[in-house]
């Protein structure tokens, strides 16, 4: 029982990391109709940037903040310079974002090498919390807490703020929003940068758990795409539920059926798609 609970926490923590990265992917998809295949690379880049700062004796939290800011800025520049030009052109989007992911991944290899790295757990959170006979690592609890906080923030932004209303209206009828005087392009840039920042955040927070290694960007991208599909394209709530489900099932699957763990994830996706083709929270498409 106690081992099971500890594993459940691990699964939840992984789920929250998946949520943080998938949510950017799904929002960018829902709002701008762009599948950003470079999203996994932004995750990896965030982790490496924090790694560099931490090696320079910068404290974990400051490194986290800097990495998130820098990935946001990179997202902003990419959108303004490149993505902006190809809204509505799906093939170009796939080629561009896929190409970007290669370029960034190669740059990472060139700068940081191919060795596997991990980030240290910040001192404050290195202990664990014992309840009964189970020890829950504080850092994993913290990641779960941040994931829930992010969900709360997104709920607030979506339903209670003007920006949230503009984004919802933009998904309904983009041209009408612009005809009412709102610079939809600026909103898109903001959404893209926000998504990039969340990918960076997820990468840094994942550093002590998953670490960084060559090829992790495509692994995490595939997992995030599965989460997005399960949750329903464009739905952050769906991503939240989907990511938790994948995190937990994958973690428990690794323990119980080590040889089938990736299969279990795909199996879940298939079952969801058979029952609800539009995903858990997806809009029905005509």
């Amino acid at each position, binding site marked *: 029982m106690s081992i099971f609970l500890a594993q459940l926490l691990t699964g939840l923590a992984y789920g929250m990391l998946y949520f943080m990265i998938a949510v950017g992917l799904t929002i960018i998809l829902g709002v701008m109709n762009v599948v950003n295949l470079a999203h996994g690379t932004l995750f990896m880049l965030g982790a490496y940037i924090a790694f560099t700062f931490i090696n320079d004796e910068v404290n974990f939290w400051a490194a986290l903040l800097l990495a998130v800011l820098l990935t946001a800025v990179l997202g902003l520049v990419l959108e303004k310079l490149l993505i902006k030009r190809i809204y509505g052109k799906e093939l170009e989007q796939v080629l561009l974002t896929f190409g970007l992911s290669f370029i960034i991944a190669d740059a990472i290899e060139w700068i940081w090498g191919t060795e596997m790295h991990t980030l240290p757990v910040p001192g404050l959170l290195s202990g664990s919390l014992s309840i009964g006979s189970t020890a829950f690592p504080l850092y994993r609890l913290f990641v779960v807490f941040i994931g829930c906080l992010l969900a709360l923030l997104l709920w607030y932004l979506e339903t209670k703020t003007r920006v949230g*209303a503009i984004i919802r209206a933009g998904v309904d009828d983009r041209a009408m929003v612009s005809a009412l005087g709102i610079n939809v392009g600026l909103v898109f840039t903001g959404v893209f940068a926000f998504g990039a920042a969340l990918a960076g955040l997820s990468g840094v927070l994942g550093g002590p758990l998953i670490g960084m290694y060559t090829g992790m960007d495509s692994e995490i991208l595939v997992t995030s795409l599965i989460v997005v599909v399960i949750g329903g394209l464009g739905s952050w709530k769906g991503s939240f539920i989907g990511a938790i489900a994948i995190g937990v099932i994958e973690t428990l699957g690794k323990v119980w059926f080590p040889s089938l763990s990736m299969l279990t994830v795909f199996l879940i996706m298939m079952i969801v798609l058979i029952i609800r083709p539009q995903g858990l929270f997806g809009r029905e498409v005509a």
Partner: protein
Amino acid sequence: MLELQDVHSYYGTSYILQGVTFSVLKGKCVALLGRNGAGKTTTIHTIAGLHKAKRGSIRFKNRPLESLPPHQISRLGIGLVPQGRRIFPSLTVKENLTMPARKRKADDGGINWDLEKIYELFPVLKERENNFGTQLSGGQQQMLAIGRALMTNPEFLLMDEPSEGLAPVIIDQIGEIIVQLKEAGLSILIVEQNIALACKAADEILIMNKGKIVWSGSPDGLMANEGIQHKYLGVSS
């Protein structure tokens, strides 16, 4: 206030606006009539920047609009009440109004529209402020579309078939609102199929056929001219 000069517009290779020229003076209401497919909505969209003209000039308060994106055109003081109302289904009635809200820029003593004033004009919207846009009746949606445009505090209103699909009583109500808005100082270009509504609200009537303005005159002039009504508006006498 608004001037179109020889505007030409295409959808792909189909030639829609074939040299449209007209103007709307400050404080006036001009009605644009014509059969389905004549190019009225294309005219509205071309002014609002949702569709780009190939040739010709569009000036608002003496500023060229042709190369501006829609949000900048809106910010110069042009409000759009589109055909089919295009209420945002994911937004509540209140959010549909507050989302585009902008304070009045022009210092001409006009009304500064805010939520309270819109609710005064359309009390039914206040009653339903927490409903989602698409839960309203057609007439209420039209009121919401007008209110939403007013919330941007425009000096000029583009209205595309506000009476479409509404019951006669509601059409009268909408007609009165339009007259009221004109009296409050707004300049208006209204596209209509309903001749009675157009003649009640407008100072000048334009008739469009196959992408050209083929007739212009006063409401009385149109009422007196059954030949024109028959030829271009499909009114049988």
